């Protein structure tokens, strides 16, 4: 049996980043660290404590105790109420800083993230975890990190870290059973009934439980026991549900007074972009669109998603996209608030091949196109391609290709080898170029033996020295109203040049000239 490549055969590994008492920490952050604080739920008839910090716990306060009783036990207790805004901000911060470590993250529950570490070499896990812990600590959040082979084992590791008061604990695969032997069954978050039953059996550690046979557990402890056994033996795998990053990179500013000029908004936008790109680059991502949301003093709102040709972190490009759009807006009333959001996306590996060629700066190209369309018209800018028809003057404009392929040398060679006497499709290197007159040039033509001999028009006038033709062409006769029919002559006029004379709709027209 062939061996799998090392990258595929490498077992998965996960980390759980857990911020215990998240709701309280989100409200407190850096403040009130040394004094007893409790978060209370005032929505019910009797106010109760939702959670409290270790100082309050030391004074006898615990989750679920009535607030009055908590205050009786700890008169210095500071009471706080939950804040949805603070929780959202803390959740975003947690997720954003965790994204600096690895890209695939699940928001398992409030204040708990599960990270897939398979994208990072094992030797960097501890350093990355410590870096994350330090950054979160400086942001005012006390978190612990547990690592393990499965999300469940990583979660158990995080529980152990929290219980032991250490910041990082790794439930390594190679000595998993030994480590589990040190852990009480209570850290596995199982029901009190199961804990009691295991205690009666004399199974006090997770390692002892993991050493039991599965059939024995299934027959005696049922589903919950089997599920715990699978968790502890590393057989309970599940795919992570990636966290939504859509609203993660967003900044918002409320003006104290309504703003009628664009300059202050540009200033704010520039500041937002600086901050957001710095945050985004830390996660290894780039912006693929800019969302601009404006609120006006008359209560109306304006929102626009401005897509980018390719993901970028270029501050100038992002600012030009936002400010350029703002410049086109007609401000009927003052702006009261501005919100900017960068839509994150994976960076495109756009490195060209060693001898590759293509657009150097797609953002600049898109801006140029936009401005050229404003000057010349949107239907007059593009890369021209003849349409698949025999009817002359039919061509379409397509977007310019972002990459230039190697030219087809073989086709050019064929022409050279075969005497350069006829046109090979796609390699029109024979004959002079034709240029069409912008306006219709009607001509009077004198014929001699059915060959034009004299021409009189506003653009060309004189004796025909040589004439090639007639070339008859027709088409779309099967489509009523679209049928066309024409006769072409290529003429050389004495001391004037080469012209194309076309007979259609009962008259002769000098269509253009060869040059």
């Amino acid at each position: 049996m062939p061996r799998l490549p090392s990258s595929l055969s490498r077992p998965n590994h996960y980390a759980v980043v857990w911020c215990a008492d998240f709701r309280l920490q989100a409200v407190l952050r850096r403040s009130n660290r040394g004094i007893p604080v409790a978060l209370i739920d005032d929505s019910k008839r009797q106010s109760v404590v939702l959670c409290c910090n270790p100082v309050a716990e030391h004074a006898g306060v615990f989750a679920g105790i009535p607030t009055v009783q908590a205050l009786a036990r700890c008169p210095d207790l500071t009471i706080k109420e939950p804040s949805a805004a603070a929780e959202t901000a803390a959740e975003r911060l947690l997720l954003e800083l965790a994204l600096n470590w690895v890209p695939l993250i699940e928001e398992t529950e409030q204040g708990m993230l599960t990270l897939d570490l398979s994208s990072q070499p094992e030797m960097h896990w501890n350093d990355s975890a410590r870096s994350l812990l330090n950054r979160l600590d400086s942001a005012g959040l006390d978190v612990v990190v547990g690592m393990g082979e499965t999300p469940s084992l990583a979660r158990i590791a995080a529980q152990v870290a929290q219980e032991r008061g250490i910041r990082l604990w790794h439930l390594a695969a190679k000595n998993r059973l030994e480590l589990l032997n040190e852990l009480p069954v209570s850290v596995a978050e199982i029901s009190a009934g199961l804990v009691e039953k295991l205690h009666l059996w004399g199974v006090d550690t997770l390692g002892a439980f993991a050493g039991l046979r599965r059939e024995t557990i299934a027959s005696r402890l049922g589903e919950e026991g089997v599920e715990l056994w699978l968790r502890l033996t590393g057989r309970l795998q599940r795919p992570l549900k990636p966290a939504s990053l859509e609203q993660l990179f967003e900044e918002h500013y409320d003006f104290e007074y309504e703003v009628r000029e664009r300059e202050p908004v540009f200033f704010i936008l520039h500041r937002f972009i600086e901050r957001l790109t710095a945050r985004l680059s830390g996660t290894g991502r780039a912006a693929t669109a800019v969302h601009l949301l404006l609120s006006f003093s008359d209560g109306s709102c304006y929102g626009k998603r401005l897509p980018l040709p390719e993901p970028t972190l270029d501050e100038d490009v992002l600012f030009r996209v936002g400010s350029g759009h703002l410049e086109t807006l007609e401000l009927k009333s003052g702006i009261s608030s501005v919100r900017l959001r960068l839509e994150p996306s994976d960076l495109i590996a756009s490195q060209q091949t060693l001898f590759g060629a293509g657009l150097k700066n797609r953002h600049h190209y898109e801006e140029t196109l936009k401005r050229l369309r404003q000057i010349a018209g949107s239907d007059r800018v593009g890369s021209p391609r003849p349409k698949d028809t025999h009817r002359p003057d039919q061509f379409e404009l397509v977007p310019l290709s972002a990459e230039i392929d190697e030219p087809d040398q073989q086709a050019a060679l064929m022409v050279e080898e075969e005497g350069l006497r006829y046109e090979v499709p796609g390699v029109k290197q024979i004959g002079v170029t034709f240029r069409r007159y912008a306006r219709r040039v009607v001509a009077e033509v004198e014929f001699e033996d059915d060959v034009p001999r004299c021409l009189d028009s506003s653009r060309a006038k004189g004796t025909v020295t040589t004439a090639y033709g007639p070339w008859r062409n027709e088409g779309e006769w099967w489509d009523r109203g679209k049928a066309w029919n024409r006769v072409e002559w290529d003429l050389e006029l004495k001391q004037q040049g080469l012209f194309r004379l076309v007979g259609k709709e009962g008259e002769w027209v000098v269509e253009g000239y060869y040059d």
Partner: protein
Amino acid sequence: MVDSGKKAALEAIRSQLGGKVVSGTEFLQERELHDTCLPTHFPGLDEALGGGLPRGQLTEMIGSSVSSGSGLIMAELLALARRERRYVMLLDVGRGFTPWSFPDQDLEVLLWVGCDNAKMAIEALDVATRDENFSLFLVDLRDSEAADWKSVRSSQWYRILGQMRQRETATVLFAPSPVTAASKVRVEVAIPMPLASLNENRSELVKRGRFRRTHFSSGQKSDRRAYPLEALQAG
């Protein structure tokens, strides 16, 4: 004896490989030329241009009459850009461009901008020359009147020149008469073009062409002054 043997061997290799072997000196000379110019690889035209299309400069190709061969030069410049895998922008005054006259694969590197008049084309050129994605700009003024481009202010031309110098791009103006004093190089194009040339190879036609470089007199400062084309044609 040894030297002559080496030379003979080198010549033999050169003849076998068809000029693909160059000496270091030749390579450096060509490289130096490439840094300042975009050679067209047509000896007559390159000689008139002073080595090729100068980077960061405006070049005028003057075809004083219909069927003088300016369109052929344009087609060959487009083919050259395709071979060298560079993007080209064509600012087409009068919108008389016909894609059927050009190989399909050459059109892949071309961005066409249809303009109503020279003023619009120069305005578009002003925007386009700020873009580093394009290395060559072609402005087709063959069907416009001199009065049309005379209305373009000199300051705009010089701003465009500044932008081109910054990005080392080249611009070629195709016109029936001189356009602006901001152009460094002006070449009069005359390619003999009988009706039989409709069946001839383009490169051969260009090789048969006559190209004459013309200059402004040192005292001429403004492009609004009449240009003595007849005098140049005469001598």
